[in-house]
């Protein structure tokens, strides 16, 4: 019999570096900053109080295993697990850390993520990887999603302007966030007139390459109270779904829904006991790696019916002062996407929002919200729900 971990795990500390181009810092340096900030907020000592660590990172350290956190923190003799699950890596590190706490195996654990991508050179995420099949057509990350936009244009009459509205909204929000990579408002024309990255997506339909680190301190609510009083949030759900690495070869693929998100959302809503997310939740942070992804995610997260995603953006429903704010932090559009760090940062944002600590981009009366990652070729989705303890 499956059991929910709802309200069994508390988040008591968050640490997030500024996201951006950290040419003068190593991944180790960023991770140290994020982890010590999280420990400080949680009133815990990294060496005395932390029992186990989950570290998420996609690039750079394959084969580096638990050293990814143990070496930079000089933290030895205890369990460290490296997590990699494409763009959902960070959220998956939190998920596994949460389960360890919910099982009472450890008292206080650290979930953290970091990514250093610019050292590889070139543009876009590196493709120098042998696990891809040599003869199955490759594509860049935006080219996983651009074909979906083409289908949405055809089936639903969506347009490049609809996608541009997402970018404009997220840049409005991110301009106010102190940790964001990009803090500049843009216009519809900025998006439409930008160079094409993967048709029909332009530069401003895409999130940037960015670097950063994020960390969370996770424990049981009874311990949380002794450390931070009532200044903690609880995890309502953590869900993950893995779909095919080769969606374009699926005989029934239509490009109009990301089934990984649909499955993860169903599981998360079950765990959190939510029937109507648009009414019962207050806001969401979605994986806007590309603007088309955000529009489709409105639908896959059951905030509206298939085909209505663009209308939510047009009508301002998802603006920070709208009925259901999405990406009040500015999203990946403003933070970029250091793959290992992103999911951890999103969980930190949820925590700050429900604790009323979201400086510059606080959603009014935010009590419970969701975060969503979608990784690889529309393939690996994670959904986390965080709220005030009930």
């Amino acid at each position, binding site marked *: 019999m499956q059991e929910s971990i709802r309200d069994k795990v508390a988040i008591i500390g968050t640490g997030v570096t500024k996201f951006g181009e950290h040419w003068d810092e190593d991944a180790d340096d960023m991770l140290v900053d994020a982890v010590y900030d999280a420990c400080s907020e949680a009133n815990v000592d990294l060496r005395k109080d932390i029992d186990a660590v989950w570290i998420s990172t996609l690039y750079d350290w394959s084969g580096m295993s638990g050293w990814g956190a143990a070496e930079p923190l000089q933290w030895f003799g205890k369990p460290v697990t490296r997590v990699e699950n494409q763009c959902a890596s960070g959220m998956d590190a939190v998920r596994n850390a949460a389960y360890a706490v919910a099982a009472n195996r450890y008292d206080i654990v650290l979930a953290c993520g970091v990514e250093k991508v610019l050292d590889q050179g*070139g*543009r*876009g995420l*590196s*493709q*120098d990887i*042998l696990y891809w*099949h*040599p*003869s*199955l*057509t*490759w*594509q*860049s*990350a*935006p*080219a996983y999603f*651009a*074909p*979906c936009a*083409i*289908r949405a244009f*055809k089936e639903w009459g969506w347009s490049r302007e609809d996608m541009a509205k997402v970018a404009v909204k997220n840049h409005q929000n991110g301009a106010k966030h102190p940790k964001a990579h990009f803090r500049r408002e843009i216009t519809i024309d900025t998006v439409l007139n930008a*160079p*094409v*990255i*993967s*048709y*029909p*997506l332009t530069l401003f339909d895409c999130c940037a390459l960015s670097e950063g680190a994020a960390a969370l301190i996770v424990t049981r609510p009874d311990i949380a109270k002794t450390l931070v009083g009532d200044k903690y949030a609880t995890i309502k759900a953590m869900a993950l779904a893995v779909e*095919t690495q*080769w969606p*374009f*070869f*699926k*005989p*029934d*693929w239509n*490009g109009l829904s990301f089934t990984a998100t649909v499955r993860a959302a169903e599981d998360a809503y079950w765990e959190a006991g939510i029937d109507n997310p648009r009414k019962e939740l207050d806001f969401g942070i979605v994986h806007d790696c590309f603007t088309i992804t955000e529009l489709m995610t409105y639908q896959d997260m059951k905030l509206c019916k298939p085909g209505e995603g663009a209308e939510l953006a047009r009508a301002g429903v998802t603006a920070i002062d709208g009925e259901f704010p999405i990406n009040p932090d500015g999203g990946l559009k403003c933070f970029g996407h250091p793959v290992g760090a992103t999911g951890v940062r999103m969980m930190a944002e949820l925590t700050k929002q429900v604790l009323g600590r979201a400086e510059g981009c606080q959603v009014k009366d935010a009590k419970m919200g969701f975060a969503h990652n979608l990784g690889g070729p529309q393939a690996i989705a994670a959904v986390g729900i965080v709220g005030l303890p009930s």
Partner: protein
Amino acid sequence: MAGILSYGVYVPIWRISRDEIARSVGSASMRGERAVASWDEDSLTMGVEAGLDCLAGVDPTEIDGLYFASVSSPYREKQVSSLIASVLDLRKDVYTSDFAGSLRAGTQAVKAACDGVRAGTMRKVLVIAADARKAMPRSDAEQTYGDGAVALLIGGDDKALATIEGFSTIVDPMPGPWRREEDRYAQVFDVRIDTRFGVLKNVPQAVNRVLGEVGLQASDVSKYAAYGPDARTHAAIAGQLKIDAKTQLQDSMFKDTGITGVAHCLLLLVAALEEAKQGDHIVCTSYGEGSDAFLVKATDRLDRERANHRGTQYVSSKAMLPSYGRFLTYKKEIEVGWPEWERSSVAKYWRDENWLLPLYGMKCNNCGTLQYPVRRICSVCGERDNYENVKLARRGKVFTFTHDYLLGPGNRPADGINAATRVLIALEDGCRIWLEMTDHNAEEVNVDIPVELTFRLLHEKSDFRFYGWKARPPRAGSN
């Protein structure tokens, strides 16, 4: 006796005008245009395309031999014919051999095929001749060369569209052209020696011998499909043979394709066959350290067979390269873009031959879904190890697409200029396949446009050439 059962042609879509070459390098234009293999084509891929055209309507399992002839094989060591045999889905016990070293390699492969058929050791032999020769920038060869391929299916004469009546050879170790192990381009000492004492001497010798064998006069022959290294030498052959250049000498295609190496005289033979009537005699003659000449006679099957093959429609199906710079890029004389990521898995490529080269998909025996690539578990119903290998259709329509500026053609790092168009195709048999597109104009790509599959170089990494299937707009009278 042996005969030609079927023929196929392939000429790349790209042409460059010789005026553009001449203007760019400051030389004199030889007029007309030449065919140019794209960056993802070589003698192997063009050979596959010609083979596919030739085998339209032919059962590949009846083929006992495959000969590949080229002086521009992509590999110094590695047999091309064995790889082509896999792509064309020939039997595993097919006899394969590569012919090389001389521009006579194509006609020599024809001779070997005829001998095998006559000796009774092979029933049907596919001969593929293809060349995409590299020419030194600014050299005359840059203008005279062209890229293309021809395939002839040789078998018994009872079902031939043309019977092969005779074959003769003259050997003469002339100095040029030659290309040493370390040479990128072929060189010649002085073309006047090779023209005067080689082509114009050896070709008539070989032709007269074969005509003498069968008791025909030069005037009895309808067409001479004769190799000439350039337009002027080609015209001079008519004088040496004392034939009427206007009516008896098959047009050299110099102005259309350029001289396509080992394939060229066979290309002219196909062009002559396309126009021939039953009973017509055609002489095909090559040159290179001597000359081969063979005589064919058209049969009543020719008319019926023509409709099955695209043949020289590939010559008229064309698009112009925008610049000499693009030509140099396609010929790899200049490198563009960021440095390559270097690795790709040779082992995976070898393991998955069955679905990569002959293009088999899997049809689940439980739910009946046709899918690609082949995997042990059905992607729809989860059935394990229970499927049939099914050959996939090579035509379909675009379901969706993108022009990817971040990962360029051939999986090259982005240069921000050259997008890779990638298309999701609904094949005619219902299978979905996601492929890179080639030979296209990006502005004409859209949902629902028809495409056909073409065999190309995918990328070159790990010092290995990875070939596979791509999509292109339908060409050359496809139907």
